[in-house]
């Protein structure tokens, strides 16, 4: 079964104020559509049920009553319905704006195929999960480092694209604490299907606690095995792509691993963050997520175990 964090990202099961607005609007349009469809089906089925007698009749070339009927039923009535729905929808047209002058709380940068997450004011850098305090409008800037991605947490808000060369501004707000699944909604290449993230909504106190922990540099290796893991990490190329703040690794191409062990998933929402999956990921990422920038890393069994111990210590 699914061991991944966040439930089904159901649009119609909103957990935040914005998604609630959108769900109401979706229900309104869905119900109107069902009513119209039923009327059309009746209009089609009644003639089928009715037996028609009499000779074929081409009818007159121009029938004014028919034209009037068509104009009223086909255009005038739909126009009134559509106008009402349209105007009702316009109340939400500015739903994600927070003003371009406000400073963002979070920056999310799309990469093929993972999410870089920064809290500039708190000095935090992480990946593939976004912690937010509940009941607060968290201002987010969306950027891309390569191609177009689209940032989407269905239970909290609609989607907004991340476009190279542009900054899109957005906000998220969760009513209650919980984990919400986020997805990339714009086709972004080979592994678009495996570009997910988790929004973790927690109380203000928990958020402050989390932020304080994340802002610290990585803890040094706790024991000899972990220290061995750290040098294996340095000498097998991991550090070219990954940063472990305070432990001498400063690569920028892949996710920051400073507090890796605190995260829920690996591979951008793909696998639960357990020792077994992590080992598999390190030695055969290309098998698990073909095309990912992470290469298959060749390590001896001992080295691998040491690296796993080291990474598990990065709380």
């Amino acid at each position, binding site marked *: 079964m699914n061991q991944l964090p966040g439930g089904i990202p159901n649009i119609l099961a909103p957990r935040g104020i914005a998604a609630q607005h959108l769900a109401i609007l979706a229900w309104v349009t869905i119900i109107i559509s069902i009513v119209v469809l039923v009327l059309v089906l009746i209009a089609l089925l009644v003639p089928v049920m009715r037996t028609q007698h009499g000779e074929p009749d081409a009818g007159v070339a121009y029938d004014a009553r028919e034209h009037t009927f068509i104009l009223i039923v086909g255009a005038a009535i739909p126009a009134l319905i559509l106008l009402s729905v349209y105007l009702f*929808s316009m109340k939400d047209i500015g739903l994600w704006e927070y003003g371009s002058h406000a400073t963002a709380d979070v920056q999310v940068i799309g990469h093929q195929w993972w999410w870089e997450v920064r809290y500039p004011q708190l000095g935090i850098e992480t990946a593939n999960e976004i912690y937010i305090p509940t009941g607060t409008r968290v201002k987010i800037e969306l950027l891309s480092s390569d191609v177009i991605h689209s940032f989407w947490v*269905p239970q909290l808000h609609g989607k907004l694209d991340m476009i190279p060369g542009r900054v899109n501004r957005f906000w998220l707000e969760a009513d209650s604490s919980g984990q919400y699944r986020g997805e990339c909604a714009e086709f972004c290449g080979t592994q678009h299907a495996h570009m997910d993230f988790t929004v973790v909504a927690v109380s203000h106190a928990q958020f402050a606690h989390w932020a304080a922990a994340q802002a610290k540099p990585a803890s040094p290796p706790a024991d000899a095995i972990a220290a061995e893991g750290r040098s294996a990490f340095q000498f097998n190329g991991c550090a070219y792509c990954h940063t472990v703040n305070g432990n001498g690794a400063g690569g920028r191409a892949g996710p920051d691993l400073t507090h890796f062990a605190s995260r829920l998933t690996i591979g951008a929402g793909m696998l639960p963050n357990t020792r077994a999956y992590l080992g598999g990921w390190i030695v055969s990422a290309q098998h698990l997520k073909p095309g990912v920038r992470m290469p298959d890393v060749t390590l001896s069994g001992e080295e691998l175990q040491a690296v796993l111990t080291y990474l598990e210590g990065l709380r």
Partner: protein
Amino acid sequence: MGATALAKRLDAIWETPHTLIGSLTTVDHKAIGKRYLVTAFIFLCLGGIEAALMRAQLTRPNEHLLSAEAYNQLFTMHGTTMMFLYAAPILSGFSNYFVPLLIGSRDMAFPRLNAFSYWIFLFAGIFLYSSFLVGAAPNGGWFNYVPLTARPFDPGINIDFYCIALIFLSVSTTVGAVNFIVTILRMRAPGMTLGRMPMYLWSTLSTSVVILFSLPALTAACLMLELDRRTGTHFFDPSGGGSSLLWQHLFWSFGHPWVYVVVLPAFGIVSMALPVFVRRRLAGFDYVAMSTVAIAIIGFGVWAHHMFATGLPTVGMGFFSAASMIIVLPSGVSVTAWLLTVWTGRPVYTTSYLFMLGFIVIFVIGGLSGVITGIVPVDWQVHDTYFVVAHLHYVLIGANLFPVVGGIYYWFPKMTGRLMSERIGKWSFWLMFIGFNVGFFPMHIAGLLGMPRRVYTYYEGMGLDTVNLIETIGAYVFAIGVLVFIINVIRSARRGPLAGSDPWHGATLEWSTPSPPPAYNFEVIPIITGRDPLWDQTLEEIHGGADDPSRTLTNGRETLATTVTDARPDAILHMPEDSIWPMLLALSLAILCYSALLNVTIVSILAAIVAALSVGGWFWPEHRELAP
């Protein structure tokens, strides 16, 4: 001249020899139309096989039948094939075959251009599909968003295949549109004023105008992208001052009008066949005609509704959402007119009629889900999910494939002289109708559950397992329905009962000539006094006049030009003879495309020279001696 002598003389003038050379040189619009229909249908099958592979991959979560890269190539080719090589060309096939027959003409205005247009379409399709042979099919989606398709992120030749094929194909589509516009405006039978044109001509005319004004945006975009990829320009590169959003504006300002290009002629087919099967005129004809024109025009103002999630200014989104609501109204008028026609008619439940009814149901569902996606805030949620996949297939299969298949059931007797099997036909309809709805309706639910589009797999336990299994089953039932239809076509073409000239008691001119029509279509250029000539006039009134040389036109390949609005005889047109040059020109351009793709300059130069010579040969003056 007696009737048989007249027919013999016209045969001698118009008939193309049934040889290999004859088939390569013919400019007969009926031969070209049939080729378009068959070729487009083969591409439909190829696109369908791609879809079947994708559905197999999506049957279960975490399936490994296809690799991610293979899946991405397949969905790209599926979309590109269906939009460019099936949906538009199949309608060109109908238009090529039936426009001259509907207007009482002997051919299209530019027969050689017509042949050229077909060859380009064929070669462009082959060019695009040859990408599979080198394992480098386009993989950036049919929408091909930059920068994913820019060189740094897609360095192979996949995207070059896409750009060059579409630039190449645009030649075919453009000259085809010009040909239809001139033919419809200038070659209608005397008396067929604009107001008396059958609805199919309104839709073909509107569509052709839309093509002329929308396709250049795509061609320009593909050219700019090739320049970015090949020569390092920066049209779409923000780091060089370009814009990555520019592609989307160009693509959709073409792409949305294109949706109407592939549905309007299909609406026209429905407006032609439906009244015949319910035995009355189309209700509200004038409004349906005006709706067709209105949809064509408003269709240019809705493109940004594909981009509501890109962060457009709110005023812009409000405008494009409003335009998207407004375009519902002419569609509503057309649907109401069809419903009223059905309601007040006395229907004969033929297979063709069932397809028309099926079209109405499916298209209405697609239209309603279109309203849902056209509401900006709702679109922020459903955009780029399976909800949109459901929507677009309801619109395109509903408003293109169902009328097309219904149209083939309707016009097959005219094209082949034989009736299709109604028994097999009913099977094909119900398999397709039920299979389609079982296959595609659950996609709405998958989308609402948050399943994004264009994913090669999905996670277990996300509530998507059952809906996807049902979708695959439905899709395969649908595919079996299409297969049954194909079997019916092949079987009926050989063994179907003879149809006679007018098996349905049709209203329009094509039913007044034998089935299949002779090479010259009509012995005598018809004279029209009403909108439904075969219901309003006797055959003698339409075709009487075999003694009048200005109606029989037997001095070489000749047909009549008439004035634009009221169709008064204006000039006798001398039509060109068969020619090999259109095919050679298209072939040399195809070679030019390959050499451009592979950067072989010397071959490019040679191909360009052959192309120039072919143009010369094409226009070389010719004279054919005729018996007195």
